[in-house]
């Protein structure tokens, strides 16, 4: 039973950038998957966890390294590896039954075998009575069940799950998780291993035997956390809480504060900026400044107080760190003096503070402001900066970064941008 199900060796993945160079998104991934294992890939968005899943699914090929499954290198969708998609990806023109049968038809099985297996899968996953329904008639949870049934009926060895619960509401997600774990524990699923991509820490601890924590720039595995708890696991259990806390720390460990300062100081305009609204930043600062945290809070705690997911909270915290309003260390978020000042200030003073931090610590913002000041008419086309950014990052990242900096500059009244004419300028309408 210890025979490896899947072996990933020194895998790297890169995408071409606009300037022709490659952008490394996965660096040196090594992983051996044993039979009977649920492996969790945990990380923030952009850490390459979904990219890795797509490599395993054979939807893309790595630029370096290899993925070996059943003694053969994966060079395309492999038999025995199936996938559950985040959006369920059902075909809206096929009924539940037809959706489930599709993969079996592709295998070229005889008609009666197809029908038998599809009905068994539908039965297993609790979809009886819905066979002739169309996906549009189903709730999100039921749709995702169809997605599971479709993936399971082809009797895969490895089931890949790409954030399958993240599009569902909390209750539905929990029911689906519990149902899945029950079937898995009872050995009623025709699968030998699961790879689950998630950004939800509790979900990872709840479901996985092993959690691989991903960090980005480029995406790589920073830590491996073993979860030895028996199923069903209780979220209230002390060991469970410990593991959640450990995962938080692992997720926030990188970048370390000192190194982060170096990195930001050294960084030029080539930094990809997160799309975070100034209001969200202000909200988080206020929450951390207020009672009972008083300027310092545990990330998991503040996340649950604000009813936010890690993936939503991290970019905000990171943006604040970039602007030197907070420090993040070992799963804690702490306000700097500037941060405290901001939390207490009124609207106009906040804008001033924000402008100062923005122009000082976000090189792109300072750069745009300088260019505008140097020009006699104080105007510059968007294209000018986009071209500059695209030398360093992908087209999409450049666009998103520029939008982020525009949003911040608007809040700070640092410079103006007119989307109709796609020009930056110094004057705001008065």
């Amino acid at each position: 039973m210890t025979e490896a199900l899947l072996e990933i060796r020194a895998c790297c993945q890169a995408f071409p950038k606009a300037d022709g160079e490659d952008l490394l998104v996965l660096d040196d991934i090594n992983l051996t998957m044993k039979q009977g294992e649920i492996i969790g890939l945990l990380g923030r968005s952009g850490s390459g966890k979904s990219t890795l899943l797509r490599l395993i699914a054979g939807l893309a090929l790595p630029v370096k390294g290899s993925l070996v499954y059943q003694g053969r290198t994966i060079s395309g969708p492999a038999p025995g590896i199936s996938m559950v998609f985040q959006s369920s990806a059902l075909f809206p023109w096929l009924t539940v039954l037809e959706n489930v049968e599709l993969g079996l038809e592709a295998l070229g099985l005889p008609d009666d075998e197809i029908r038998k297996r599809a009905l068994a899968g539908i039965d297993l996953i609790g979809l009886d009575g819905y066979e002739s329904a169309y996906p549009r008639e189903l709730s999100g949870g039921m749709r995702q069940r169809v997605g599971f049934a479709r993936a399971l009926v082809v009797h895969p060895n490895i089931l890949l799950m790409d954030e399958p619960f993240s599009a569902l509401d909390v209750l539905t997600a929990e029911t689906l998780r519990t149902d899945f774990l029950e079937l898995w524990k009872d050995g009623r699923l025709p699968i030998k291993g699961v790879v689950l991509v998630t950004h939800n820490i509790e979900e990872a601890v709840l479901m996985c035997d092993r959690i691989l924590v991903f960090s980005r720039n480029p995406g790589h595995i920073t830590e491996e956390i073993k979860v030895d708890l028996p199923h069903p696991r209780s979220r209230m259990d002390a060991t469970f809480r410990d593991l959640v806390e450990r995962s938080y720390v692992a997720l926030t460990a990188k970048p370390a504060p000192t190194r982060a300062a170096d990195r930001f100081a050294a960084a030029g305009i080539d930094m990809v900026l997160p799309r975070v609204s100034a209001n969200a930043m202000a909200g988080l600062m206020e929450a951390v400044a207020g009672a009972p945290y008083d300027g310092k809070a545990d990330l998991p705690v503040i996340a649950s107080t604000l009813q936010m997911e890690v993936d939503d909270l991290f970019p905000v915290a990171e943006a604040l760190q970039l602007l030197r309003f907070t420090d993040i260390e070992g799963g804690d978020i702490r306000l700097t003096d500037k941060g405290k000042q901001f939390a207490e200030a009124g609207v106009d003073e906040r804008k001033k503070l924000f402008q100062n931090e923005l122009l000082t610590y976000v090189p792109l913002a300072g750069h745009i402001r300088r260019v505008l000041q140097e020009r006699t008419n104080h105007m510059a086309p968007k294209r000018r900066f986009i071209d500059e950014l695209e030398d360093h990052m992908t087209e999409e990242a450049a666009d998103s970064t520029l939008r982020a900096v525009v949003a911040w500059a608007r809040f700070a009244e640092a410079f103006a941008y007119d989307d109709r004419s796609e020009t930056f300028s110094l004057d705001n309408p008065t």
Partner: protein
Amino acid sequence: MRGTIPISVEQGQRRGFTRWDIVAALLVLGLLVFIGEASRHLLQPLTELQAAPVSLDPMRLPEYAARTTLRMLVALLLSLVFTFTYATLAAKSRRAEKLLVPLLDILQSVPILGFISVTVVFFMSLAPGRVLGAEFAAVFAIFTSQAWNMAFSFYQSLRTVPVELLEASRVFKLSRWMQFWRVEAPFAMPQLIWNMMVSMSGSWFFVVASEAISVGNTTVTLPGIGSYIALAITQENLHAVVWAIAAMMIVILLYDQILFRPLVAWADRFRFEQQAGVMPPRSWVLDVLRRSGAVATLMAPLGRLWRRTMRWSLFEPGPRIAVVKRLNSRWVDGLWLACLAALAAYVMWRVGDFVAGNVSWQEFGRALLLGAVTLARVTILIVIATVIWLPLGVMIGMRPRLAQFIQPAAQFLAAFPANVLFPIAVSAIVVLKLDPNIWLSPLMILGTQWYILFNVVAGAMSIPSEMRDVGTNLQIRGWLWWRKIAIPAVFPYYVTGAITASGGSWNASIVAEVASWGSTKLQAYGLGAYIAQATEAGDFQRIVLGVAVMSLYVVILNRILWRPLYWYAERKFRLE
């Protein structure tokens, strides 16, 4: 594991013979009789046609109508085949795309009417001396008026299939054949069927021109509504014209009920947006076919056979991954581009040679000038149509009950060929001594203005009720309401309609700038009349010149006006 199977998909035990079976049987039988009746004459020699020329007897109209409809349906079928191959190739192959898409774009703007006499010779030679050859030519002419927009819509759809659906189909290892029929074609279906309807409407316009074909000195007149109308016009028989219009209306109604309603209702399940609450389209024909046990029994083996083809390993899924062999692929790309450039240069040289040898610069200048006149005409007409139909469309769209009634009526009117109104227009112009340069123009937009109307109506219907409520709440009224709410909300829809209307009007100018009623012949000054004249005279050089200049105008207009306007509308006003 389970006992009974409580589902309806099992087709084993159907109800016995029902009344629906009778209706369905009648429908099927009717269809067979129709095809047999309409295709009876195909293999007869051409001389037969001369022996039994088209007659204006209204009793012959059902047969003529059947033959015309069959031609249109065959052309539609060919258009579908063309769509599935051409558009698929363009969407699947990056290299083919570079050539095929611009080519389609040009083909869309070429007024094919001018080419009918050129292509006829070729098609007649396929079945020499038989009616079949002339039929080929007619069907081809109709095909050219239907195929382009269908292919374009299919290509667009194929390019926008959601990524997750394609990935799912790859993870589950669907073969290419299966992926096409189970994923891509269904996704494209609603849009394709809509375009089939538009094509069918549009092609009525060409029916009159395509059924009366002249090759050199001999004129072949294929029996059909088109040639019936043409004859009625030469003989100044107003009664016959009215009969023809009536027959045409009945035919349009019939194929709408028997063909397109069922198709639309059937294709509803292929809609990708998973919204609830919108009334699904219904069709009594589809209901009958679905409820009939006999049809189900007959179709079941066909369905099984069709599913069997999904197993063809001929189209192995393979790895199908874009393996990045950049250097290699760049070389091939370069080579391919060089080939295309060489081909383009060669064709340009040949065309230039052909035209230049016989056409002077003066002639070219004249064609350009005439084009400008037609351009002015089209522009003014579009402006007038906009002023009339935009406000009316918005008002209709705001009243859903009225809109439900107006929408199909507008679509019906769009099918109405201008030719049949010639008698009225020409008589009026002659009697009232009007200037044909002005008064022939409305015929150009007669059929195409409705695209503006029904697109605007659709746009107004889609304004969210909250937005309307805000307007009421803030007491926004009058011009301000039009300026800030209504016009921006319907603008993208309006642009779509105006593009179609403008393109259609250019095409229509060939028919509409020259009108005749018996021996009276009226002619306006314009490029359309120029092409029509050249066609009549069999002057190929001028046909080519006229068609090329017109394509040039349409392409330039699309590039500098319509396309930027479309993107602007998409970006600015599209309600998410």
